[in-house]
């Protein structure tokens, strides 16, 4: 059974666009990335799944439960790192953890201490005195300290330095190995390419492609990465048949190029 299933999920803000007809299914222990630039609708999709926004139409089910009617039961089994994490300036991370542990019925602080050590997070300073990156570490710990079955991470590495980004990617991999499903949104194409099993490309509120990362890369590699100018896509064999050509190969495309290809196609179509 899929952990997350949406069927034509739509959220509009009056006449303004939010997300439109988003249909996706995310399996257990899968790392799925919503990929798109700022304003594409990634955060709206996540907030609708979390029941922070009520859908205009369509439906979403998490763990087989209705995302609106059963939101409390669903939230007991997930961890969420909101985009641009904040909790108030005067509270410390430890105070926030204590409250969340009581709300979740977790003994002590779960695995918060080892996580704090791993991410060099200061849990005892008021959050208002921490840099954005250090606040983000605390937010990451709040989302994961209770070992949830589903992790929802909205722009998780924003503000983290490269070393901590590496540590974060390692944590996501470990969570998947533990059996946790991870849904993350990002516009950092490199990190999505490295950690996600599948990606959904979001453009102007619509999910325009859902593919395994490897397949997406291979598909685009086959189609576009011949560094010779042709008027239409060609096969390598055809190129090799051109008189005088000794060899031909496709250059490796990265996910950023795939992403840009989809966006250009969308704008042209």
């Amino acid at each position, binding site marked *: 059974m899929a952990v997350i299933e949406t069927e034509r999920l739509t959220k509009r803000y009056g006449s303004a666009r939010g997300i439109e007809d988003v249909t996706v299914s995310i399996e257990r222990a899968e790392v799925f990335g919503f990929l798109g630039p700022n304003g594409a609708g990634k955060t709206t999709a996540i907030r609708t799944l979390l029941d922070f926004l009520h859908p205009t139409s369509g439906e979403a089910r998490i763990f087989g439960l209705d995302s609106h009617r059963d939101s409390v039961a669903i939230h007991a089994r997930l961890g969420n790192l909101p985009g641009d994490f904040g*909790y108030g300036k005067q509270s410390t991370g430890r105070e926030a953890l204590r409250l969340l542990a009581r709300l979740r019925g977790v003994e002590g602080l779960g695995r918060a201490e080892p996580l704090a050590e791993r991410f060099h997070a200061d849990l005892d300073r008021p959050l208002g005195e921490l840099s954005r990156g250090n606040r983000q570490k605390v937010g990451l710990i709040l989302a994961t300290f209770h070992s949830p079955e589903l992790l929802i991470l909205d722009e998780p590495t924003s503000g983290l330095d490269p070393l901590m980004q590496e540590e974060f990617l390692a944590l996501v991999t470990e969570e998947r190995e533990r059996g946790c499903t991870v849904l993350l949104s990002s516009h950092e194409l490199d990190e999505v390419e490295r950690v996600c099993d599948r990606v959904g490309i979001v453009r102007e509120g619509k999910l325009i492609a859902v593919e395994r990362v490897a397949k997406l890369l291979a598909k685009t590699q086959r189609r576009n990465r011949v560094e010779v100018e042709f008027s239409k896509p060609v096969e390598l064999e055809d190129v090799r048949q051109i008189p005088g050509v000794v060899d031909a190969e496709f250059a490796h495309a990265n996910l950023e190029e795939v992403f840009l290809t989809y966006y250009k196609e969308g704008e042209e179509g």
Partner: protein
Amino acid sequence: MSAQLGALIAAHLSDRRRSLLAWGLPLGLWSAFIVIIFPSVEGALSKAVQGYPEALKEAFGIGELTSVEQYLQAEMLSLIVPLALGYLAVRAVASGLSGAAESGRLDVLLSSPVSRSRIAAASFAATGVELAVVLVVTVILTALGSLVADAHLSLSAAIAGYASVWPLALLFAGLGIVATGFSLRTTVVTGAVAGALVTMYVIDLVGRLDPDLSGIRYASVFKYYGNAIEDGIDPLSFICVTLAALLLAALGAWLFERRDLSG
């Protein structure tokens, strides 16, 4: 009371601990000052009040100022304390809802297995406790002032006078939750409810000043506020206003459940 509700109330009060002192100490010290100076100004006050227009005395609940209780009513309980506590109530309840939404805390709390209505209930209950603590601090400092100045303030009368402010202020906390159902901006919530607070006070004042307009007083909760320091608490008014506050809070929680939490 569930463990979740208790945890949320405790967290709310912990966040507001500075506010408890910031409001309780000034109100208490001011009230104590009024009691302390009463013995020295008593005679002059009586003469001055005799010269006041009857309508003015009626409007501000000023009768004879021959006792410290009457003086406390005129100086503190007829205007300053109810307006101040009403404003504190909406500030307190807004900090737990719209303030939490603005800081990002609401997203974190609602990502745990807790409903929006429970967060609204906790915010309302914590505000009730906060108001009670501020009033207790005020009464204690006032009683100390009476002891220092030997003003012979009746402690039971003082408790009744200050306690009667509690349901009135709580009603504005309930209105604050209703306002949160429409806006998650703290300035909008506090502005709208503070406006309602002042408007209700003015409506009651106008109704008292002009007997032909006395009917409009039913639109104001101040009609049911009275003068408890001299007359004692009217249990019916106390209970009805408290119930009205609870109903408003329940309505607000219902609206809060149904609204979007925009990012």
